């Protein structure tokens, strides 16, 4: 019986340096410029003259270790085992030998991890857990993302381009782990039914005062059911935020009929040209229709295509809409404008139009 090794804690992540290829160590902080020689490939050139080709491949983000091992093997074959992941969950192979670029691309395409996602077009969708792992999800994440990316694939692999980068994000509930609040196009899972209260569970797992105070609209109040203390929800005051559910698992919002997806447009985070902007509501509700969510896919595609046709070079979706005006956006996309589009939350008044600066019809 061997004695156990002393328990290591708080060691933090491994130092990145050990994973960097030589060319990066040498040119670290001394890159001069980059080019995009072909879709999915970035060429970075150092002041030293050194060159690095980054070949970007698609990923489902949800990956089996089988796949990770495959990627490791490919990296060994083409680039000394050096690869990285991007902030949008693509895989980048870091190649120093130009002659390996095309064979690498071919191999990746063959294995089903197609190359693309650079330049003005659509890259991987930032997304969340959905029915794979989260208790809060109003929809699945991976399935919607896969369905949308299949349809928009030509904008990923470079066979079609767009006026500018178009960033899509997905979040399966209002917590917005996919940070959809600042995306060119965002898909967001929404509940539309007030919490159904599991009174038995509530008694065991929740504090009544903290459940009551979790509700931002004051829709929850203490009550007694069958002579025992619990809470009730005034349905008209519920805006389906699920904050009560986060605090108390007995306040369940999931609902097979009323859950679904909403579509948001015009957000961005870069400072390029315009300041960062929030996404704004385009479509309040589309049904959950697994396995391929055709309504959602069609809605996103429609917006992409209208944008592709009408926007100028380097004009992100939000910049394009600001130029043409929201009325025109709704007209061109044939999306209905409803009372749900009009903000009625805390700073709602700040979104009302307070001038005559609009196009007359």
């Amino acid at each position, binding site marked *: 019986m061997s004695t156990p090794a002393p328990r290591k804690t708080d060691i933090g992540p*491994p130092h990145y340096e050990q994973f960097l290829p030589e060319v990066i160590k040498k040119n670290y902080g001394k890159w001069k410029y*980059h080019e995009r020689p072909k879709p999915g490939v970035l060429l970075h050139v150092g002041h030293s003259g050194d060159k690095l080709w980054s070949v970007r491949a698609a990923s489902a983000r949800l990956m089996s270790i089988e796949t990770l091992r495959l990627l490791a093997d490919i990296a060994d074959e083409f680039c000394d085992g050096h690869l990285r992941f991007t902030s949008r969950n693509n895989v980048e192979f870091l190649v120093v030998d130009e002659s390996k670029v095309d064979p690498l691309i071919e191999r990746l395409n063959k294995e089903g991890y197609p190359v693309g996602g650079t330049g003005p077009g659509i890259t991987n969708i930032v997304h969340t857990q959905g029915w794979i*792992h989260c208790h809060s999800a109003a929809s699945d994440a991976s399935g919607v993302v896969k369905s949308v990316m299949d349809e928009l694939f030509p904008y990923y692999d470079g066979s079609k381009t767009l006026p500018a980068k178009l960033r899509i994000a997905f979040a399966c509930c209002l917590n917005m782990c996919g940070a959809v609040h600042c995306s060119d196009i965002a898909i967001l899972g929404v509940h539309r039914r007030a919490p159904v209260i599991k009174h038995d569970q509530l008694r065991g797992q929740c504090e009544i005062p903290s459940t009551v105070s979790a509700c931002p609209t004051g829709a929850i109040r203490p009550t007694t059911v069958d002579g025992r203390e619990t809470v009730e929800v005034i349905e008209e005051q519920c805006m389906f935020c699920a904050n009560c559910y986060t605090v108390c698992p007995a306040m369940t919002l999931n609902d097979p009929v009323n859950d679904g997806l909403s579509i948001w447009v015009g957000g961005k985070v870069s400072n390029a040209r315009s300041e960062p902007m929030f996404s704004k509501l385009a479509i309040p509700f589309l049904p959950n229709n697994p396995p391929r969510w055709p309504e959602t896919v069609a809605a996103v595609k429609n917006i992409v295509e209208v944008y592709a046709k009408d926007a100028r070079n380097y004009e992100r979706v939000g910049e394009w809409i600001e130029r043409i005006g929201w009325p025109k956006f709704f007209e061109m996309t044939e999306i209905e404008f409803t009372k749900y589009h009009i903000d009625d939350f805390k700073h709602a008044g700040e979104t009302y139009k307070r001038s005559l600066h609009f196009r007359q019809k």
Partner: protein
Amino acid sequence: MAEKLRATPLLDELEKGPWPSFVTEMKKSAAKNPMANDQLGILEHSYRDKIGHWKHGGLVGVMGYGGGVIGRYSDLPEEYPECAEFHTIRVNQPAGWFYTSDVLRKLCDVWEKHGSGLTNMHGSTGDIILLGAKTEALEPVFSDLTEMGFDLGGSGSDVRTPSCCCGESRCEWACYDTMKFTHELTQHFQDELHRPAFPYKFKFKMAGCPNDCVASVARSDMSIIGTWRDNIQIDQKEVAAYVKNGLDIDADVTSRCPTGCIKWDGKALQIDNTNCVKCMHCINTMPKGLAPGKDRGATILLGAKAPIIGGALLASVLVPFYDMEDAEDIYELAEEIWDVWGEHGMNRERVGEFIQRIGLGNFLEQIGLEPEPEMVMHPRTNPYIFFELDEEG
């Protein structure tokens, strides 16, 4: 051991099409791993009845840590017993998400041994996500991970796993060394990362330039974005070459400058740098011709978050220009902020909401910074000034 795959007629539809299929990924694992196979089954179940089958997680984790594991139990334990416990382990990624094939394989080995074989590369915050472990596996995974040099990331009301763009490692525009800073910051705040002691979560994200490739301005409580103070570097010959090669410099560059401070006279580019707001657009369009200035540093912004529960926030300017040579001072600044927020913040109140509640002016006073006009879009429009009482006129 080979598994008989769960029948997944609905999910099978998602193996079609050009985009990599997560269903294929799940089947790869499911073929070898009973936990992954039941997970496949439960997802098909969700696709059938259009509802998730996960319950609130309990308090699970590793000894001495308050975060890093998300507990998860299914509500169909009888039907899918192998994934009845299906916890997630958040593993702190190396800065910049660089790996070698070696280290990747080692990670896979650990996960093959103890878990479902499914991962997310990576989670939205930046962690390596190991998806699906039983409670009993948590300590062993942790011990194997630390053995190979990895540690857990954040969850709960702690510092969350900091992340950054690749910065100087692979980008000519980085105005400071995001990866070095991120690594050192993460090491410095190990205790804060592993032992939740704040009113709510606190995220750091580091971007090397105003393009903000890590979306820090939207997704981090403290966002540190590289910028510069002096003149944009111009290589006029390269600029001219872009034009010659077909760039419509008026339509695509100069007319798109937010302050109109850049002009092309047919021969040379002129930039009125005093009016440049560091948006990056002109540089983005001509990477060979233009580059950020040489007097580089970062703007520190505070308070971004998702909408729960007062509405989403973008981060707002806290330090207009910070010389990243003294990067260590940022630790002190962060601690100052945590002290004030920790003392006066309410439970589940992010720092951005806290600042809005107490007012940016008061917040600055409390952390000892001077107000500057760069911190606001414009001065107040309402006349409701809390004049201080000792200021007798």
